[in-house]
């Protein structure tokens, strides 16, 4: 390196260090500002919903066969806030005179939409062929899904079905709310 340098070495060293320090200093400002906004989603918690009315108990078959319903609630999407729009869907089945079971219709494996098959009386995910029994438990041990379908907290009030709608982390054996 030294062949092009004519200035005394010591001064040269100080100049180099100063250049690198100042250059480094000015170079971090823009990336840091950008990274803060880029990482902003990490500090946002998902909104926790209250109970949402899904349907009336009378609309469910007496034999316990599930019916799929959209969940209509307030959707907050970045700056937008929209009332009464679909935020997901659930399977609801009658399990007693005033009890229901409510399953999130999304597969716990990788998030595909799970269908109900009346012929097998169970749920089946078309993406990776996870099979679930009518109560949401894993029906086929070869199913790639690490856990049963996600059951949601539900209540029957005055003949109406109310659900606390939630999504859970996919691909994990544990049911962790997101």
């Amino acid at each position, binding site marked *: 390196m030294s062949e092009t340098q004519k200035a005394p070495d010591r001064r040269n060293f100080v100049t180099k260090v*100063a250049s690198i320090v100042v250059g480094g200093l*000015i170079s971090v400002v823009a*990336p840091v*500002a*950008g990274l*803060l*906004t880029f990482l*902003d989603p990490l500090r946002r918690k998902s909104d926790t919903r209250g109970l949402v009315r899904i349907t009336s108990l009378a609309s469910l078959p007496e034999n316990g066969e599930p019916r799929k319903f959209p969940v209509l609630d307030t959707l*907050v999407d970045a*700056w937008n806030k929209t009332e009464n729009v679909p935020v997901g869907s659930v399977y609801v089945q009658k399990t007693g005179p005033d009890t229901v079971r409510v399953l999130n219709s999304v597969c716990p494996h990788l998030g595909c939409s799970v269908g109900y098959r009346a012929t097998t009386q169970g749920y089946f995910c078309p993406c990776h062929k996870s099979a679930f029994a009518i109560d949401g438990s894993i029906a086929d041990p070869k199913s790639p899904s690490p856990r049963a379908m996600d059951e949601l907290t539900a209540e029957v009030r005055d003949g109406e079905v109310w659900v606390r709608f939630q999504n859970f982390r996919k691909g994990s054996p544990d049911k962790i709310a997101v």
Partner: protein
Amino acid sequence: MADTSNSPSEPGSKLQQAERWLDNRTGFKGLLHEVLFENVPGGSRWRYVWGSTLSFFFVVQVITGTFLWMSYSPSTQSAWESVYFIQHQMWGGWFLRGLHHFVAQAMTVLLVLHLMQVIIDGAYKAPREVNYWFGVVLLLLILALSLTGYLLPWDQNGYWSTAVSTNLVGMSPIVGQAAQTVVVGGANYGHQTLSRFLALHAGVIPGVIILFIVGHVYLFRRHGITPAKPLKGPDEGFWPEQILKDVVACLAVLLVVLFFVVREHGAPLGAPADPAEQFSAARPEWYFLFLFQMLKYFPGKTEIIGAIILPTLLLLTLAAMPIIGKWRLGHRFNLGFMGVMLGGVVLLTWQAMAADKNDVEFQAAKATAKRDAARAVELANGGVPITGALSLMRDDAYTRGPRIFSQNCSSCHRFDGHDGLGSPLPKDSISGSDLKGFGSREWVRGFLHADTILTSRYWGGTIHAEGDMAMWLADHAPEDEDEQAMRENVVLALSYQAKLRSQSALDVRDSARIASGIAFMRNTSSGCAECHKFQDVGTDSPELTDWGSREWTIAFVADPTHPRFFGRDNDRMPSFGTEKTLSQREIEMVVDWLRGEWHTPKATAAKP
């Protein structure tokens, strides 16, 4: 790893070995050497820093712009909203926006300094002509960036300023109209305008700029620096002497930028663009103000001279400098031309600023714009409907109310002496009462007074000045303390009818006095009910039950000629509702604004 180079037996640390391995395959050391060890004849100097600072800040713009792009959504219902979200909701979003905004301004200044240094040092002369032309193209491209970026937040200022600049494009001969339609993406400004401007601003123009910068730097290195004579000392290397000066200059500019970013808390964001809302505060960025001002000197058909011909001539002269410079006095001409041009720009900019500063209407419009901008953020904090923030603004009593008042009421009424938006009104235009604080105790107190009711603040300019009410007040001036107290009780009782939210605590506190006042009002022989209908007593109008309340006032504005109000005694007040001059919602908004009762949503939008 199987190393095919000659290095396995060579000594040195692992790092040196890795360096050699990489250099054998890429030749990066030679490249680095090429980049860093440019000879600087006569040693490093501060006057050479401008090119480097421009390159540095261009990179800053690419970085900040890319991150902004990740959060920006180009459509008329989401552009302002996403920028609002960046500025007011995202972590450090205001800082990112501010940096991008103020670095853009700094670059404009740096461009001028760079150009000045090049012209003064004669660096445009042979063999560097092509490089100079590259620079002129880069100057135009950077200005194009600033023009396209100004629209993207889709706020009032960006919208109306861009309308002007694109209409100027439309004025250009032959292809102007077609060019405007293509750039705008249609006859009107909308989704297509935003997506096109974003593609230009974030993709096309920066891409072309990078090509030109590569060419510019390549040619610069090919010909070397143009040393400013006399040389000040021995040659130095670009690394590290000149680089140190370059980075220190960058740091200095960055510090100035950061000062503005922090002081302004990011970049300005006006109220969302509204094609139906006059925006008298529209101005281009300060560095385009000279063009804006120049237009004023070319009225009517001569406009094209100021808008297109003159700027084109200036630009052509700028581009021709290398050729002019060859003449005997060419360089001197160039220097003189640059001086005159810069002086002209400074003068025009100063004129534009001074004109605005002394323009009362512009200042009022600016204050309104500032208030609207703050209000838009307040409303958006409660969550924006999918129809966009503009629909919140159109339904907002706080900002719509004064506009409706200014357009429909201020030809007779005033609000605190002005037209509702802060503009003064001609004295002779006043006939109706000043409606600031209508229904409040203070307002009623002045009204129920024999002298003040005859001032222009109340009924001085109306036929009611000679009516029964004014006569009654003149005949019944309170004569002793008891009568004074009773009059005050009536003031409280009548004002209580208005049910102003701002007065609710006072109304509760003074309930005993109000009850006494109401008893007087109900007296059909000597109280208000002698004439007025009040609750279940009295017969005549205007009715005093709930006088001045929201419902009463809305019904009054809708039809003051209704028997409940002035009936046939109505002076000149139009029936805004029954004549369909104003919609029900518009009347509600102006009344809510007069009452100071507008809805402000709770901040809920996606707070972390």
